[in-house]
């Protein structure tokens, strides 16, 4: 019963919390760049404004263009509900594992790229081709990270992974550190953050994600933006869940533990958001063909994590 209740609460919590996370990143970046910056609540207002507006669709757009925002948003949302962020005892958590999560993110990317191609503008096609280029490198790295973690914990289920890490059977493993490094690199690429893509630019030469959603307006754009926000929250939650799960409540814990879990989760995610902003301020954007080296590095880190599991006989 509580599992169902928390499942429902968590589903809405993820959507409600995602714009605040993005707002926090933007505010920190503005402050670091010497600007005052908008309030962290600004993304909520942006989404609300977009929802009020009329959505204009190009003449050449097919049904795919219209339905893509809904498919994209729902699959990211579904992926976010799998993660045990506040408590491991949620109704959605046993339903799917981390590999299903990668698949759901793949669906998102596939439909975003198709929607970019659908209208037939050159920017959409450019963005779609770049997105697929990045995805083809980021996805193997992400899967490899998941394989290394599941070799260590003997499970691919996020809830069991959290329980395993909380049980203290795993020390300061080199493999865990390497996997964390790889996952951070993949998270930066998948969310289109700075060394890979700049989320706040509309400069033709460099944009990737923005180029694909350029034709959207009104509620369609609101859904696309919300999907990007939920995806950022999803990756930040995934990193905290697997590598710093302290505070997450288990099955049968009282409401006090659940509140503690909620507080710990939001504190961890917001801290990571601030760190992301600091990192983005420090580095410069890469040339597009350097991305292959960057993500190849992530894949190799994950591969090394697996190799070291065998050396330290942790398997």
């Amino acid at each position: 019963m509580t599992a169902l209740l928390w499942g429902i609460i968590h589903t809405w919590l993820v959507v409600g919390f995602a714009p605040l996370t993005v707002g926090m990143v933007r505010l920190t970046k503005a402050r670091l760049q010497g600007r005052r910056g908008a309030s962290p609540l600004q993304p909520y207002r942006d989404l609300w404004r977009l929802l009020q507006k009329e959505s204009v669709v190009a003449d050449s757009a097919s049904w795919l263009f219209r339905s893509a925002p809904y498919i994209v948003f729902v699959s990211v949302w579904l992926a976010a509900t799998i993660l045990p962020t506040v408590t491991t005892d949620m109704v959605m958590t046993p339903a799917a594992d981390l590999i299903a999560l990668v698949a759901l993110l793949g669906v998102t990317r596939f439909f975003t790229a198709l929607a970019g191609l659908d209208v037939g503008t050159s920017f959409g096609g450019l963005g779609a081709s770049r997105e697929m280029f990045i995805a083809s490198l980021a996805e193997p790295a992400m899967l490899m990270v998941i394989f290394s973690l599941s070799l260590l914990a003997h499970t691919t289920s996020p809830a069991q992974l959290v329980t395993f890490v909380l049980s203290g059977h795993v020390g300061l493993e080199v493999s865990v550190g390497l996997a964390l490094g790889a996952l951070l690199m993949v998270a930066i690429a998948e969310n289109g953050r700075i060394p890979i893509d700049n989320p706040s630019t509309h400069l033709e030469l460099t944009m990737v994600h923005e180029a694909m959603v350029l034709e959207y307006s009104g509620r369609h754009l609101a859904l696309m933006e919300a999907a990007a926000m939920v995806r950022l929250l999803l990756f930040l939650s995934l990193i905290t869940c697997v590598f710093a799960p302290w505070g997450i409540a288990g099955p049968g814990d009282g409401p006090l533990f659940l509140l503690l879990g909620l507080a710990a989760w939001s504190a961890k995610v917001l801290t990571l958001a601030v760190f992301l902003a600091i990192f983005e301020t420090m580095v410069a954007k890469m040339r597009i063909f350097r991305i292959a080296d960057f993500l190849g590095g992530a894949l190799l880190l994950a591969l090394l994590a697996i190799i070291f599991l065998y050396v330290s006989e942790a398997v």
Partner: protein
Amino acid sequence: MTMGAIAYDTAHLIGATVLMMGFGLLYQRRMTAVIRTYSLQAMALAAAAAWQAYIQDAPHLYATAAIALLFKGIAVPAALQWLVRKLGIHRTVETALGIGPTMMAGVGLVALSIVLVLPVTENATALTRESIALAMSVVLLGLLMMITRRNAVTQVVGFMALENGLLLGAVGAKGMPLVVEISIAFSVLVAMTLFGIFFFRIRERFDSLDLAYLETYRGERQ
């Protein structure tokens, strides 16, 4: 977790940091970034030596750590940076092989060293086995760096990284005499000086530090 497990895990983590810096050297393309990464690797090596001194209760390893930190972490990188500025090549980017294939080869070498070490050290404890595997990987990555770079300065950095790997293996083994370590450290310094002189000679002769010119000069390539 017991104290022994923490000591073991920390030694392992520091060793892996040295290895990661080895990969960092392969990944970097700009001259100043390569030298900075080398300096970080030497500092991680100093940390590894200091930690081994602490857990093995061997005070002479503190001297090793201090030598690694002062000479390799600070003096040699500073000298290299000075050389690079003096020679006016601090903006050079060149690799004989692309970054991607080099990194692939690097991971292959790490796997190779593990495959080599595992059967040899069947009776050893896991700590020894891992530190030997890590040290051997760092040595092989240094060799790879020397092979894949065409510039004399980056090749020297590869040589220094190789020597870092040797020292990483040496501090992990019990009973390494201090005299050996000091003599290694000083011979590296001497080598560094000789390399510096050679850089100037090579550039005087060919107007470049690209060693491909040397190959044509020796008649290996037309």
